[in-house]
């Protein structure tokens, strides 16, 4: 049985590795994606993975100062996804 503090550190390391791997997999789909929708979806997934990574960094350092960065990433990721999709759909973002 692992000691609990070791368990927490181990979980943090595993979470870092898994989120980094998820980021890399989404990046592969971004590069090879056959259609435009796949590329938009891969970018959206990469933003969500980046939010998870920021939260993990905040947990590892034990501070709360990364909260604003995660919030701004969430807002900007949504706006950029919608803007990209509208640009593909209409050829124009603000009509």
């Amino acid at each position: 049985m692992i000691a609990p503090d070791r368990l927490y550190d181990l979980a943090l390391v595993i979470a870092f590795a898994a989120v980094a791997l998820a980021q890399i997999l989404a990046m592969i789909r971004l590069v090879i994606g056959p259609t435009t929708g796949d590329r938009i979806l891969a970018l959206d997934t990469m933003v969500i993975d980046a939010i998870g990574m920021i939260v993990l960094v905040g947990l590892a350092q034990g501070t709360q100062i990364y909260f604003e960065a995660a919030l701004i990433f969430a807002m900007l990721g949504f706006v950029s996804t919608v803007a990209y999709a509208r640009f593909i759909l209409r050829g124009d973002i603000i009509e």
Partner: protein
Amino acid sequence: MTGTVIPEILIAICLLMGALFMLVGSFGLLKLDSPMKRMHAPTKASTLGVGALLLASMLHSFAFDDGSLHEILIMAFLFVTAPISANFIAKVAIHRGRDMPTPEPPKDQTWSTLDVPAETGSPDAPEAPVRG
């Protein structure tokens, strides 16, 4: 020592669950074989995963600090906006998907996102233009 064991186990479970869900979401994005199938994995699994990571952060702040509910803001925003962006990406896949025909609508004339009026703006255009 014993006071921090239970929160650390809870945080570790939330972390592992969230990281696993995010990994499954990105793996599904890479593995599935058609654009509409690929829509499933990241929009649902990754959103749930980042929710679990934010829950772990919130538990950490309550267990070892003063406690903060800030993360609910990010969680609510992500959970609200994930279906909207998925809807937009699905519209892009419908309009641009040359190799995948749209299934027949159950009882209407056509899918509403393909039912664009004519360029002149007359609302009762006789028929929707062919998609493409």
